[in-house]
Structures are given as structure tokens and as C-alpha cells.
């Protein structure tokens, strides 16, 4: 049996003088997909940021691939290079002089200082392969700031797949996508997850997608309100507990 890729134990995180996440514990089994759901302000992105070492923890500990996250959020380089992250958006205001291929190349580089010309051939080949696998090869010379929302998200997956990794974290990666772009992104993510053996942790508001794709669901509203399989967690009663009484949960007939 595989050991868990991520172990979160008794994690609390303080933001602006109040506990945004309180005593959260869970594990991500290898090659599983786990969704974090909950209302706005529930601490979902804060939880993800603390797991990645981007925010300090008040209590608790985090282990990624068996390696504990240090108090100041550091991980050894070889563990850090096993993590990929897809944020909601990139700061691409105005014309940003960065090509798609260059951006994906930064996903190939390991952490730490590095001359731009190092491992040039190996790097170029990895970029081409990653863009090819995500259907973005025709975009390689385009500026990142010229891409549509759907194209940008697929390029971000190229950034993740350009080198082998084990843990993929997505923070509302589908935010702002229309229905066809969202569907295409989901299919690509599922395909790459199977090929790469990624363990996925994603924050999402799309409960229908969560029900279809996740093995485990964490219902978060500062504390962990519920966790388990989608069928066990995404019940009307639990969703009303999580989101409040004004939520009217329903299941899409085509997927239900």
C-alpha cells in the first residue's frame, strides 16, 4: 500500500488576527483526487496556502511526501520540485513580454539559482512535449497575455506537466472559464492525472464537477465540517450545514 502524499494534522492558520482555519486534519492517498468545498471566506485558499508553506501555521503540521514542512514553510528542493500549483489567475495586465514556451520552461527548471542557458536542449525538448500533450503546441510563440482564459489554463497545465511531479494543487483553477472551456480543462486534467499518476488537491465551487471527478471531498467552513466520498459528503443535509439554509442543492440529471 502507498503511503499518503500529503498528511495535514491539526492545522490552524491565523489571518488578520482571527483563525481562518481551525484544527483541520486529513490525508491525501497517492494518486487520489480530493476537493475542498465551502462558502466564500471559509478558509479554503488559506488552507492551500498554509499547506504549500506560503502562510505561517498557528498550530499543527504538514507532511508532503513524508517530509515535514518547516516552520518557515521550507521544503527540500527535491520535494518542492514534486509540487505543481495552478492559481486562479496571473498578473498579466497590459502587454507582458513572455512567450508561452518561456513560461512553460520555468516549470521545467528546479528551484534555486540557475543560468538561463543551462540544459538548453533537454529543456527545449521537455517544453515541446509538454505543449504537445496539452494541445498547446500552436501557442508556443504567443504571448501569455494574448491567450484566452481557457488557453491560459491549459498552458498552466503544460507548466505542471513539463517535468514529472507527484502533487498537483489547484486553487479555483476553473474560475472565469465558460462551460466548454471548463469541460475541456476538466478532460485534460483527468487525462494528465491518469498518465502522470498525480495526486490532486483542488479548491472548487463547482459541486457537479467535484461529484464527478473527486475521490474525497472536504467540506470546510473554518473547521472541517464533513469529509468522505462525494456521495457521502455532497448530500442536501450536509450542504445546508456547510453553506447555510439558503442553499438549494440539486443534482444534474445527466450525471446524477
Amino acid at each position, binding site marked *: 500500500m502507498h503511503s499518503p502524499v500529503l498528511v495535514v494534522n491539526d492545522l490552524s492558520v491565523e489571518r488578520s488576527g482571527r483563525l*481562518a482555519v481551525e484544527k483541520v486534519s486529513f490525508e491525501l492517498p497517492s494518486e487520489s483526487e480530493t476537493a475542498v468545498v465551502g462558502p*466564500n*471566506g*471559509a478558509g*479554503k*485558499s*488559506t488552507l492551500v*496556502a498554509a499547506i*504549500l508553506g*506560503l502562510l505561517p501555521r498557528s498550530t499543527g503540521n504538514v507532511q508532503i511526501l513524508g517530509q515535514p514542512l518547516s516552520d518557515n*514553510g521550507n*521544503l527540500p*528542493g527535491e520535494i*518542492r*520540485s514534486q*509540487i*505543481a*500549483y495552478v*492559481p*486562479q*489567475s*496571473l*498578473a*498579466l495586465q*497590459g*502587454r*507582458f*513580454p*513572455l*512567450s508561452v514556451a*518561456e*513560461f512553460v520552461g*520555468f*516549470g521545467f*527548471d*528546479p*528551484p*534555486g*539559482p*540557475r*543560468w*538561463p542557458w543551462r540544459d538548453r536542449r533537454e529543456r527545449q525538448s521537455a517544453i515541446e512535449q509538454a505543449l504537445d500533450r496539452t494541445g498547446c503546441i500552436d501557442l508556443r*510563440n*504567443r*504571448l*501569455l497575455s*494574448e*491567450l*484566452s*482564459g*481557457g488557453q*491560459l489554463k491549459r498552458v498552466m497545465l503544460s507548466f505542471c506537466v513539463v517535468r514529472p511531479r507527484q502533487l498537483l*494543487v489547484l*486553487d*479555483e483553477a476553473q*474560475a*472565469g472559464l*465558460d462551460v466548454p472551456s471548463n469541460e475541456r480543462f476538466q478532460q485534460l486534467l483527468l487525462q494528465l492525472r491518469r498518465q502522470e499518476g498525480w495526486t490532486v488537491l483542488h*479548491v472548487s*465551487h463547482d459541486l457537479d464537477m467535484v461529484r464527478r471527478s473527486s475521490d474525497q471531498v472536504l467540506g470546510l467552513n473554518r473547521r472541517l465540517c464533513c469529509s468522505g466520498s462525494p456521495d457521502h459528503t455532497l448530500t442536501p443535509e450536509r450542504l445546508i450545514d456547510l453553506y447555510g439554509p439558503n442553499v438549494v442543492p440539486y443534482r444534474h440529471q445527466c450525471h446524477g
Partner: protein
Amino acid sequence: MVDTQSLALVLAEPFMQRALVGGLLTGALGGLLGSVAVLRELSFFSDALGHSALLGITLGILIGVNPTLVLIPFAVVFAILVNQLVERSSLPTDALLNIVYSTSLAAAILFLSLVETYRGGIRQLLFGDILGVSTLDLIVIGLLLAAALIYLSLSMRAQVLLTLNQDLAGAVGVQTRWHRLAFIVLLAVVVAVSIKAVGVLLISAFVVIPACAGRLLCRRFLVYVCVSAALGGSCALLGLLASGVTNLPSGPSVVMVQFLGFLAAMILSSGIFRRRQRPVAESLTITSSD
């Protein structure tokens, strides 16, 4: 009309030769750091640093120490303090920087009015005196350019990812706080060193204009950084030559050449855009989930 004889006479002067090398190096340094500063929306930060430098110079005069010696540590400490203020305050960055630079400028003018023995001209502080650049100044600017080139080359991935999304950078192992601070300190030192040649009022033009021109022209980050530095250096060189032969002030002449370069970049890039026009891109909203 400028003739080649007067140009040759000007170029034969050692102070003019130092000025040309100084202008080339300062311009290249401004363009190099400006390429990252402009993308990271730090243009106004460099302006605030320039204005605060006047306070550093004034403090040096008040305590009787060579202002040039005071300026670099002052600019570094000032940049770190402003960075802390921006990170910890909930007020908008541009408003905070405006408060900081207006106050430091006002304090500098008040202190200068108290110093009766001060013989240096306020005009020289405001607009710089590139003709007064010494060999030691050239060595310092040259070393700084080499340090900036090495740092930016080694940390290019960190600089780009940090500009695009701080969380993305941190998640893939970039030491975000360290790199933010290192860049700001480097920018502060460059501003402090360039003040003597460029002046308080025009320093931000050296950081912003060549980088904006490069941003309009380039489609690859590495090329953009190199073009910004090259534009910075060449505009400074041309501006100084124009200043030398026309006997106009050097700093403003350089800025006018930079502006002409920017106009040329705008015209060229509008042509490039017409050829490469793509369907309108979806805009991504920047929202916070929590």
C-alpha cells in the same frame, strides 16, 4: 548646425569621455532593472526612491559627511522601510508612496534651507551633473551593472514567476520574500548611484521609459530585458552627444531622446500588432476566493 569638428572637440575632452561611459552604463543599468520594475508595477517606487535620495543628500550635508557616502546606505534603509510599510499597510501602494516621497522631499527642502554653508546648487541635485562623473563613479556603476546582470540572470525564473503570481512562485520553491527584498535593495542602490549623474527629478525616466519601449517591442522575456538595457544605454549615449554639441543640459537631453525612442517603439509596435492581431482574448478576473 552641428559640424563634425565641434563633435570631435567635445569627444576629445576627458570629462566628456567619462560622461559618455557613465551615461552608457547608467542608462543600461536603468533599462535592465526597469524591465522587471515596470512589470512588477514598481515605477512609482523608483520615483519615490529618487525623491527620498534628496533627503539622504541633505542629511549628509547636515552631519558634515560626503553626501555620496551617505546616499547608498540611506537609500537601502529607506527602501527596506518603505517595503515593510507597503507590505503591512492596508492602504493602496501608490497613496503610501506619494505620502513618503512628498514628505521626504519637503523635509529635504526644509533641512537645506537651514544649511547656510551649503554651496552645491539645488539645480544640480534635481537635474544631475553627468559631466562631473569621476573615474571612481564609473567603477562603482560598472560593478553594479555586473552585479545586476549576474543576479537577474541567475534569478530570471524567480523574477518572472514572482511578477506573475506570488503564490505560484512560492509553491514551486522561489524564496519570494528574499527575492522581493533583494530586487528592491538593488533598485535602491542603482537609484542612489545614478542620482549624481541623472538627478532626483529625472531618475525614474531612466528606469521606466526604456523598459516601456522594450515592452512594446518584444515577445520574449530574455530579449525584452536585453532590449530595455540596450535602449537605456544607447539613448543615454545619444542624448549626451546631443547635449555636448548643442550645449543643452545633459539629463533632460537624455530623457528627450528616451522619449523619442519610446515614440518610435510605439509606432513600430502598432505595425507589429496589425500583422499579429489575434481574436480578442478573454479577460481573466482577479478575485480572491476567501
